[in-house]
């Protein structure tokens, strides 16, 4: 089964901008009874130090592609796109 790796930055800026809610909503996919056909591994991470966070948090990496100003919606869209690719 395809494995999708999601990393979510949990620095102060990103947590304030909803990082934990993104983690929660991706985790909640595991509870859906209809098989999704892929598995997701989600890890909280801290940001590279040189990344300015004022304007682009929260930052999420889906399979190592960085997404700025991520929302549950955009992360889900990326997961779907990667899974179909």
């Amino acid at each position, binding site marked *: 089964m395809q494995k999708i790796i999601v990393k979510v930055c949990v*620095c*102060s800026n*990103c*947590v*304030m901008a909803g990082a*934990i809610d*993104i983690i*929660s909503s991706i985790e909640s996919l595991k509870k859906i009874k209809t098989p999704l056909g892929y598995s997701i591994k989600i890890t909280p991470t*801290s940001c590279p130090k040189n990344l300015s966070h004022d304007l682009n948090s929260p930052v999420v990496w889906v399979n190592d592609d960085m997404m700025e100003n991520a929302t549950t919606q955009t992360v889900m869209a990326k997961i779907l796109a990667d899974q179909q690719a």
Partner: protein
Amino acid sequence: MRGIYTPVTKIRRKVFTEVARFAYEGKDFSEIDKIPYKIIPGEIARYRDSVFKERAIVGERIRLAMGLNLRPIDQPAPLSEGIEASAIDETYYEPPLVNVITFACEACPETAYFVTNNCRGCLAHPCTAVCPVQAVSMVDGRSVIDKEKCIRCGRCKEACPYDAIIRYERPCAQACGVDAIESDELGRAKINHDKCVSCGMCLVNCPFAAIADKSQIFQLINAMKSGVKIIAEIAPAFVGQLGPMATPEKIKSVLKELGFDDVYEVAVGADIGAAEEAEHFLNSVPDELPFLATSCCPSWASMAKNFFPEIAHCVSTGLTPMVATARMIKKDYPDSKVVFIGPCSAKKLEAMRRSVRSDVDFVITFEELMGMMVAKGINIDEQTIDDPFTDATAAGRGYPVAGGVAEAIVNAIHVKKPDMNVPVDRADSLSDCRKMLLLAKAGKRNGYLLEGMACPGGCVGGAGTIIPTNKASAAIKKYKDQSEKKNATESSFV
């Protein structure tokens, strides 16, 4: 919407961050006018019908976050009106705490039953037969409810085989457990402050971000800058709130980095409270009091006193964990100012009470704290030094999750009387608390220990929290299980 990050959450938090930044930078008061442009940039409206309205609403939120009152809509006044008075280094508070920004309110209709498109106009149409006031009729092959006649009994909804009839409620009123949400002449939400107990559930449940409470971060940051010793007491609900990197071991160092001189865990005060209430229960129930109700949640305690004055004396008079801890701090640091950091908006009012005022100087929420951290660029990561709390027991640390208070008290009772059967009833959410007290008033809870919490799930569901309630409860359970001492009576402060 709790636990889902929406534009409502985003705007609220940005306001805290920017007000904190404004306070840290100590800018000229006139600069406050620039903040709405920073939070709502560009010229295209994103959330409402116009960018001007968006900025005006953010402007009012900024005023509330600085502790100021809303401006009257029909009078000219600059955004900074009154700011000189609020730019002090001690608590600045003018009631009310919770405010409806009227022009942000969409004037959602009050509770009503409504026929949706699911209606198939069926042959049976039981909705018409069950209505006791003939408010439901079939018009052009569909069920229609006459709003004037409807008495909102809900029988049509129950009878419909297609689930086509829904009960519609304003989210603010639905979240309010004390029926404090009324309407003004334009149908907009209006808070009846005689009933309101400041739990803050309306402000986190309004989908149009029209309700906000006042904050004290502006004055707190001023106090921190003034050089006086500032000691933080952090509520046991803190675990996990600042993100997974912010383990309980790291909180103290981060708060010190932010500028607090020392940090206490309020769980210590919770231990003291649990032991005290256990004592109170053993001494007074059932001889002096028919039952004992816990005292730590200020919204619950106020609701009990407002709605059930005849049984108000059954609410424990023990010190709340916040006050017990603050008194300890004032003993250790006599000339300091104490800041309670918690999940709760009602604690802001509790700290205003005359008997508490000298002990607790400021109350801020986790969200507001995080705004300060972001404004000051403070992060928690692997490098942050561990500086664990060592004083509280598992009992005090379990207080913020529904059921935790009663559990702590019962366990403390069992130390003295191991075989005693202590019947417990508990409720989380003010509407359920009211039902519980109705039973108690009718004499059906005699001999009981009653735990009341205003927020669904307990303090972890409070208005000032950052992470979803279930995640917070799990994090607290883990921390609680790691605690060396288990029973409140084992605390060296009890």
